[in-house]
C-alpha cells in the first residue's frame, strides 16, 4: 500500500544530538503503523525521548485520501492515483493521467495550449490530450478552479496515474 497520499511533515525542531538511525527508526515506525492500519488515520505521533533528543512526526491525511482495503471489482474505483486526488496542503486537486501514453498540452503543434498556469477552468473543460495507441483521449477538469501548476511538458511520455496538473478548487 502506498503512503504517497499522506503528507509527512517533521513538525518539531530536531535536536542536534539526534542520530540519523533514530530518525530512520521513527520514520519507519510511522510508515509501519500506517501500513498496519485498517482505516484512515487522523494523526500518528511518535515521541522518542532520550539524551534530550525529541522527534515528532505528524501525519495529516487529506480529506479525500483513499485508504483501506482496495476493492477487487474492476468496476469501482481502485486504490491509487486514478483521476483527481486531493492535495493535503489545501483545496488543491491533482489531475492524473488516466492511462500510459503521450501527453499533448495543445490541440495541435504550434497552437495555444488548452490551459496554462492561472487559467480559470470549468468542470468538464479539456486540459490536455493523452495519446495511447494512436487514440486521442481528452483529460478534463472535474471541478471548476484555477490551474496552479502544469506538471508535465508537451509531448512527454506519462504513466498511468502520473500527476499532470494541480488545480486550486477552493
Amino acid at each position: 500500500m502506498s503512503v504517497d497520499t499522506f503528507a509527512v511533515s517533521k513538525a518539531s525542531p530536531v535536536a542536534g544530538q539526534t542520530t540519523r538511525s533514530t530518525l530512520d527508526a521513527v520514520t519507519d515506525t510511522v510508515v509501519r503503523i500506517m501500513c498496519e492500519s485498517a482505516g484512515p488515520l487522523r494523526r500518528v505521533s511518535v515521541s522518542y525521548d532520550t539524551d534530550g533528543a525529541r522527534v515528532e512526526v505528524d501525519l495529516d491525511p487529506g480529506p479525500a485520501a483513499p485508504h483501506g482495503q482496495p476493492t477487487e471489482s474492476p468496476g469501482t474505483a481502485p486504490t491509487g492515483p486514478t483521476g483527481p486526488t486531493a492535495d493535503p496542503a489545501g483545496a488543491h486537486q491533482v489531475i492524473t493521467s488516466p492511462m500510459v501514453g503521450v501527453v499533448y498540452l495543445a490541440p495541435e503543434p504550434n497552437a495555444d495550449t488548452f490551459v496554462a498556469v492561472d487559467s480559470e477552468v470549468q468542470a468538464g473543460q479539456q486540459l490536455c490530450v493523452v495519446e495511447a495507441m494512436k487514440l486521442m483521449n481528452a483529460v478534463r477538469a472535474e471541478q471548476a478552479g484555477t490551474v496552479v501548476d502544469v506538471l508535465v511538458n508537451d509531448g512527454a511520455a506519462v504513466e498511468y496515474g502520473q500527476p499532470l496538473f494541480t488545480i486550486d478548487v477552493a
Partner: protein
Amino acid sequence: MFEKILIANRGEIALRVARTCRELGIRTVGVHSTADADADFVRFADESVCIGPPPPKASYLNMAAVLQAAAQTNADAIHPGYGFLSEDADFAEACRADGVGFIGPSPELMKQIADKAVARARMAEAGLPMLPGSVSELATEDDVRRAAGRTGYPLIIKATAGGGGRGMRVVHEAGELLDAYWQNRANARRLFGHDGVYLERFLTGPRHVEVQVLADHHGNTVHLGERDCSVQRRHQKLIEETPASGLSAGLRDRMTAAAVAGARHIGYQGAGTFEFLVDDRHEFYFMEINCRIQVEHPVTEAVTGIDLIREQILVAAGQPLSLRQQDIHNRGAAIEIRVQTEDPAHDFRPTAGRLDRFAVPGGPFTRVDTATRAGASVPPFYDSLLAKLIVWAPDRAQALARADRALSEFDIHGENLSSTVDFTRTVLADPDFRNGRHDTGLVGRLTENQGESDGHR
C-alpha cells in the same frame, strides 16, 4: 539481438525473465499496476511504467497499455511470461502489427493451439496417441451420443476454449450425458465466449506428465525431458518433478519422441510444453500444448543446465538453437514446490495481506524464485503464488529429503495470510508420493484425511 525487452507480467516470473535479460546484457522495462509499484520485480527492472490500476483487465491484461508502454520505451520485444497475455494470439498479432517482437510462437500457431479441438486434430495427424473421444467439436446431440459410444463411461466433456481446470465436467452414466452437454456449452459460452465442447474418455487416477520442447526458426527441434505434475489442488499444479517417477525408459522415450514429432508437424517455434495423461497401464494420451514458459520450467533447468528463458529469447531473436539433442543430458532429479498464499484447510482459498516475516531457504542445490520480501504486501488481485522452491539432488530420494529440509527453512508470517508450506511437507511425507505411486487425486485424499482428523479432535 534485442536491446530492450518489456516484460508484460508481474511477480516471480517477471523477475525471472529480467534476471536472464540482465545476464544477456539486454535492458528491461517492467510494467506494473498501481498495486505493484513498490514490488521487487519493478525495482529490478532498468525502467518501469505504471500501466493501470490493480484489476488485471485494466493493467496486465490491458493490451493497449502494454503496447503503448513498449512504444514509448522503445522496447524491441515483449516477454509475456505465463498467464495474462502469454497465450493470447490477438496480442501476439497486435505486437506484430506494432512492429515489436513477441517472445513466443507466431499468432497463427497460437490460434491453432488455443483451440483444443484443432490442436487434437493436428496432433492426431502427427501420430500422437489420443484418448478415445471426439476429435472435433460436438455440434449435435447425435454427435455426442456417437462419441460417448466410442469412449464408454466415465467420460469428460471439455470446452475447446477452456484450460486451467475450468470448463470441464465428468459424466458417469448415459443418463447424465445430454444434460451435461448442454450445461457445459452454456458454461463455456459464459466463461470463454465460445460454446464449443468435445468429449473424451475420463481416466480415474491418471498421472499428468508433460514434455518440454525447444524449437528455433531454422527447423531444429529438441526435447528437454519430461516433468510429472500430478500433485494438483483444484486442477492447479502444486508440486512438479523431473524425471517423472515410475515411468519406464521406453515410455519416456516414446513420450519425448511424440512431443518432438508433434512440434515438428505444426512447425512449433520457441519453448513449448506437450501435456499428456498416463494411465495405470502406462499408456499415454495427448492432452494439450502450452505455448509459453511454464511455472515449473526450473526443474528442467536444474537437470539440463539450460536456461530456458535465455533459449526463448535467443530463438525469438532468430538465432539457431546452440543445442543439439545429443548435447542435452538430464542429470539427477529436481523437484519444485510452489508456495502459495492459500489456506489448505479451506479448499486452498487464496489469502492476502502484509508479510510481517518472510525468510526463504538457501544452501546446497536450493533455488528460490520469488519477488517479495518481508514488509511487502500480497495483493488480493492476482495469482497466489508467493515463491517457488526448486531443489536438485543426484536421485529422487535425496531430492525429497532436500526439499523437506528447505521447506523447513521458510519463515512466512502475516496476519490473515496462510501458506501451503506445511501442507506440501505432508505431501512429501506421504507413502504413495514417496514411492512414486501417486496420481492427480493425491491432494484431494490428503485434504479429506486432514478434514477427518480435524473432526475427531
